[in-house]
């Protein structure tokens, strides 16, 4: 039976979500912007979806905007807030371990004249809120920090960072890329002083092409996509009703059993780390137990190139990731592992395992066993 341990790349869609989306696509396919009954029906799905997402974030539904996914949400938050607030300052703070959907828009903004400061992380991939606080200046308009790192699963102290930022400069906006955390870990924007938060549908058993941006009250942000004025003019384009409804249902289902999912996956994580730690020349990255996201384990199997181990496991129908799926076709070393101070040998041999609530302890044991068998053989035929 196949063992899918690449849930940080994407997840299997819940059957309930597929059923709901099928129903919407086949019967309630109206455009919420239409005046007639078909449109009103469709709009009702959107409202429900916003309410479901808002409930997960413990906020009001008017703060939820639907997007095409995490990348769009991040682009919108960063570019939209930077350009809307450029008169107040041109300084933006981030970390070196952000996903490309944050680091690339910021690189673009740098080209547009903004100044970007990257606050370093420690060897576990964690940023210190004090360091962020010290970096905030009078002209700092925005800070962007991810909630959970997608490669090594390090959890950032977003609540402390949020409070630290507001202490240093109450006008500075705080954006959190919560794509690996949403509906998996408790996050509350109003409590944690988060002004904007990005989440994605397909990481939580929802559909691809769905995402949200939470925008807090009074946050000054320009729209990224202009057109027919949907979503109060902030995000134009015909509303993706099945996508929004599907993501929201998935979020509601995940959040409803957040604690038990966390406990289950934390048990899997402990189990895998324990298994791997017994092998020779294996380095586990990220925060040590019990810290760290429950669903991600990243390890280097020194002397075996990541892709080779990945494809060897693939032959046994075990699916893992070498680096993050979005960046594995780039040759450059992972920015996250680089920032954590990993050696080149560690980076070339790093593999990510990521779980979901249906991953079974047997899956973990079988995977560890397969790796244990493969390692001696793969190390024998390694490159000179």
């Amino acid at each position, binding site marked *: 039976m196949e063992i899918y341990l690449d849930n940080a790349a994407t997840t299997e869609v819940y059957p309930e979500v597929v059923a709901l989306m099928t129903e919407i696509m086949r019967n309630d396919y109206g455009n919420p912007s239409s005046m007639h009954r078909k449109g009103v029906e469709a709009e009702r799905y959107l409202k429900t979806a916003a309410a479901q997402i808002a409930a997960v974030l413990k906020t009001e539904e008017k703060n939820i905007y639907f997007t095409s996914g995490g990348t769009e949400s991040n682009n919108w938050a960063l570019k939209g807030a930077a350009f809307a607030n450029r008169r107040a300052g041109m300084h933006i703070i981030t970390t070196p371990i952000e996903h490309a959907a944050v680091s690339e828009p910021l690189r673009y903004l740098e080209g547009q004249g903004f100044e970007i400061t990257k606050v370093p992380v420690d060897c576990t991939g964690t940023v210190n809120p004090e360091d962020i606080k010290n970096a905030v200046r009078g002209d700092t308009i925005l800070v962007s920090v991810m909630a959970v790192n997608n490669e090594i699963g390090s959890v950032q102290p977003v609540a402390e960072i949020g409070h630290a930022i507001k202490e240093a400069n109450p006008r500075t906006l705080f954006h959190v890329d919560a794509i690996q955390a949403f509906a998996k870990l408790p996050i509350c924007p109003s409590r944690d002083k988060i002004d904007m938060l990005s989440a994605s549908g397909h990481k939580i058993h929802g559909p691809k092409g769905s995402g949200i941006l939470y925008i807090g009250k009074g946050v000054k942000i320009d729209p990224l996509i202009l057109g027919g004025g949907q979503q109060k003019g902030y995000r134009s384009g015909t509303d993706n009703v099945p996508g929004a409804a599907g993501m929201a249902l998935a979020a509601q289902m995940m959040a409803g059993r957040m604690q038990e999912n966390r406990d289950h996956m934390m048990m899997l994580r402990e189990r895998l780390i324990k298994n791997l730690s017994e092998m020779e020349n294996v380095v586990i990255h990220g925060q040590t137990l019990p810290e760290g996201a429950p669903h991600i384990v990243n390890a280097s199997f020194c002397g075996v190139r990541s*892709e*080779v181990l*990945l*494809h*060897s496991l*693939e*032959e046994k129908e075990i699916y893992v990731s070498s680096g993050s799926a979005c960046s594995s*076709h780039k040759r450059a070393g992972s920015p996250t592992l680089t920032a954590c101070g990993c050696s080149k040998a560690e980076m070339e041999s790093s593999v990510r395992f990521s779980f979901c609530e249906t991953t079974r302890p047997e899956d973990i044991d079988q995977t560890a066993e397969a790796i244990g068998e493969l390692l001696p053989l793969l190390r024998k035929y390694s*490159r*000179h």
Partner: protein
Amino acid sequence: MFHAFLIKYSEIGIKGKNRYLFEDALIEQIKRALARVEGEFTVSKESGRIFALAQGDYDFEGAVDALCRVFGISGICPVVILDDEGLEALGREVNNYITEVYQGKPMTFKILTRRARKSYPVNSMDVNAQIGAMVLFEHPELSVNVVDPEVYIHIEIRNRIYLYSEEIKGLGGLPLGTGGRAMLLLSGGIDSPVAGYMISRRGIGIDAVYFHAPPYTSERAKQKVVDLAKIVSQYTGKMKLHVINFTDIQLAIYDKCPHDELTIIMRRYMMRIAEHLAKEEGDLALITGESIGQVASQTMQSLSCTNAVCSLPVFRPLIAFDKQDIVEISQKIDTYETSILPFEDCCTIFVAKHPVTKPDLLRIEKSETKLEGAIEALVETAIMDHEVLEIDG
């Protein structure tokens, strides 16, 4: 504004009695290329010229682009076809043509008339002179130069009148289907697609063989080769892509042979397998993208060691090319962007730090004897189990 293309071909003209075979093959390829273009076309041969006539509206850019991928075409002339309404009317049409195409640009010209319909009342020389005078009157920015003009205005008088002056350079070479088929050793790199393209340009159909080594090479690396084969087949026509699982052979070589000879011995097995497949397909030669001295396995000594296992001729069209020249061709034929995608192929995964650059054939053959008894079955399995993909770009 153009209604047709006059297709020029150079080398076919010298093929003596076989000429019609080459022309028919070229017409076949032109039809195949235009079949994918928006519009209806008829392709015909008329007194030593090939015309592609558009019936009604069509995609001009698309048609030119398609014709620019057909081997055997030296030039493509967009033609305006006119009804014969007398010399005065023809003069007006020529003037309109010049206005549209050259838009008041000063230049020298010459009218070149060809009277295929001899019943036309004015002879070629007089058409030249009279139309030339009308053009000069209407276009003061032009001047005549009969020795070395910048532009020749061609007027061909048939049942209708054909007018053209521009020639778009074609690929040259010979039409596909006139020279048999050959087997290309296709890797994911820059060189081998170019090598296949160059040999195919001489009218040769291509099949290809790719060696992959899972789990050391990925499904993506294979997909990249399929993508490359698709691009190449836009020029070379339908091809069979043979995919050989080479892992066990490679591991056996790694286990038994000196590591600095790995690449050479591996390549010798690739050539043996490629030749076997070529013979099964009825292909008459092998093609590789090798270039002298580019890497250790492509020194003259290495090439003669790999060559020694083949009885079919091995064509290496890039043998004297610099890398930069190869890159330029790959950019021109559009394989470059795909070739540089960073997936490892089986030639690089086990490469030694210091491979032999001047291998000795006797020593290599001696090393290979260590494989005897095991390798034969592995080769046989690799050939038996190989996958064949039909590629049609």
